[in-house]
């Protein structure tokens, strides 16, 4: 850090980004608690977790992974476009990101509804008759994907605010720290899903 930089009045982009990175660490720790619980119960009930994972639709999960991966690319593209001063491209890429996020949630909605049709929801009688490990697996499934979906929604709100600001010109080629931070947040949402997907869907 340069010494002559330390007393600037407004929030410069380095300061804003440092704050965001620390915040992202707290998010990792938040999910980290659930990953820890997952690890413990997986070790205790590995056979049941295999059965539980086999009942999830890996295809829908894979599609959703692709959606999020592409959206991470488009949001990074939006930031680059902003840095180059291309406002129209920024808005286009942000809109694509938002649409991919919406598709992700739509998919999630169908996936959850499908589970509900089989009477698998937290505390449902069907679930309670399952082996204890599967019970916990679905408990974790709902809690982890639910908390993740909440983060997707927060991310969408952030990106929408950016879209408005880019349109209004308050986020521009000279000042884009909000866009950069929102993009960082979106990458985190993507990153957590990349861990959730194999843990919940693939390891069968």
């Amino acid at each position: 850090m340069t010494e002559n930089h330390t007393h600037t009045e407004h929030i410069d982009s380095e300061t804003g980004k440092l704050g965001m990175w620390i915040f992202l660490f707290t998010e990792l720790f938040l999910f980290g608690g659930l990953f820890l619980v997952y690890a413990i119960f997986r070790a205790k009930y590995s056979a049941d977790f295999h059965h539980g994972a086999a009942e999830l639709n890996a295809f829908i999960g894979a599609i959703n992974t692709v959606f999020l991966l592409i959206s991470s690319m488009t949001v990074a593209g939006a930031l680059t476009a902003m840095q180059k001063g291309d406002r129209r491209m920024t808005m286009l890429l942000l809109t694509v990101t938002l649409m991919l996020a919406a598709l992700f949630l739509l998919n999630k909605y169908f996936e959850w509804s499908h589970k509900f049709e089989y009477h698998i929801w937290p505390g449902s009688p069907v679930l309670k008759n399952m082996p204890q490990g599967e019970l916990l697996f679905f408990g974790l499934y709902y809690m982890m994907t639910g908390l993740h979906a909440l983060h997707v929604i927060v991310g969408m709100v952030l990106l929408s605010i950016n879209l408005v600001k880019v349109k209004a010109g308050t986020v521009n080629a000279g000042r884009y720290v909000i866009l950069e931070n929102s993009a960082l947040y979106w990458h985190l949402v993507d990153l957590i899903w990349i861990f959730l997907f194999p843990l919940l869907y693939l390891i069968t």
Partner: protein
Amino acid sequence: MTMGNDTQPSYLEYQGKHKGLAGWLLSTDHKRIGLLYLYAIIVFFFVAAFLGLLMRIELIAPGKTIMEPQTYNGLFTIHGIIMIFVIVIPGMAAVFGNFFLPIMIGARDVAFPKLNLFSWYLYITGALLGVLSQFIGNGPPDTGWTFYVPYSVESDTSVIWALTAAFILGFSSILTGLNFIVTIHRLRAPGMKWMRMPLFPWAIYATAWTQVLATPIIGITLLMVIAERVLNIGFFDPALGGDPLLYQHLFWIYSHPAVYIMILPAMGVVTEIFPTFSQKPVFGYTAIMISSLAIALVGYFVWGHHMFTAGMSYYARWFFSFLTFIVAIPSAIKVFNWISTMYGGSIDLKPPLLYAIAFIFLFMIGGFTGLVLGSLATNVQTHDTAFVVAHFHYIIFGGMGFAFFAGIHYWYPKMFGKMYNNRVANIAWGFNFIGFNLLYFPHFILGIQGMPRRSYDYLPQFHTGHFISTIGAFILIAGMLLMLFNFIRAGRRGIKAPANPWHGVTLEWKIPSPPPHENFEEIPEITSKPYFFGSSDKTKQ
């Protein structure tokens, strides 16, 4: 010598965009936010202290005295929740950190002033929700502040509200910590290298990292308990495959570091007081700074010592006990440093130093009895007894509370620009010190004799100890009210405080009292280490 301009209005008189009350509630000035925290904490503190007094009155004699057992359960729960989550965890960092961290590093404000105000609103929301949980639903929560499962899942009182309150308070704590870390990284005055930073900011820095890295764990744990209550998920319910011990682990992974969130800023405050009232540079600057970081780091890995009797492997217990002894070392280093700072100095026994010395005394009793609890064999005898209550209050109240009193006496002239009455402050100190020891010391003896904690009733053989303890409670409350009265009177009628009443040398003493809105007219240039007392410097002779 003051660097500020006296014609500039102080932050108390400053008229910004908003006037009157809105000028406070919407202010992003770190000093005003610090005072918002201070006022909230004073109110909640006296509420929780009064609840504690009611508990002591109940315990003055065996059997029912003034309340039903269920009322007592509610009282010790809300006393704990308010004291821990609303007062001591945010307390020092939020009040003194907000007010003095930017000034001591030569900044005009924290890195994210709006986020800072938002943290206060989260804090006040959580605090009010915690109080509200007493009056809504099926009665006050009765789980104790630790929310141990399975009872916190089964109890039909309004536990969910209290859990939500703790979650929101945790979020506020994270954002405050984040703000302070970035402030220290980015806003230090030119020339203030890391090793030129005063030690209170260093303590806040270590605290802030603990806040940021530990609090999310309690967040997710509380969410899991809520999920268990609402959605019947069963992470912690053996009937559904879960494990109640897992809750205890997750809870203490946060709540042990939380003890250091409380005590590190307290240590930082007294570290500022000893050099000023000895007119001598702090002894072992680097040792104090490293021990702050070491406490924050090692404090992360000792949580298991709360669970020695709960069922852990022999090796796990050995490991946690060993680390508990290790974490005592940096705390002891600090004690030696404080005492060495006073050695050979021109000691001026003003109220802040009295409180700081009381802090060392009480903190050492708390620390040594902590080792009794941290040893595997003696822990079995004292676990869940009044001994724990005594140890805990010696650390939290005797340590953090007395350091807070020390800090408020030290910085009151700077914060409000008025001098308080020293004589009244000294008398209040006497009441507080005697009352505190009478109140809590008997619990050590009661605990060793077998008095369980959180108990509404007790055997007649414990009567004497409880009786003395209740007398102490009244003396302590009287002392604290006298202290509060002294401050309120000083605020109204006190004489105007000079810029540097204690001859301190850190940056806050180089600006007017109370500080102007912008703190510094010109950001100071830092050219040397802190705590240089010039000609009166005893080490230079």
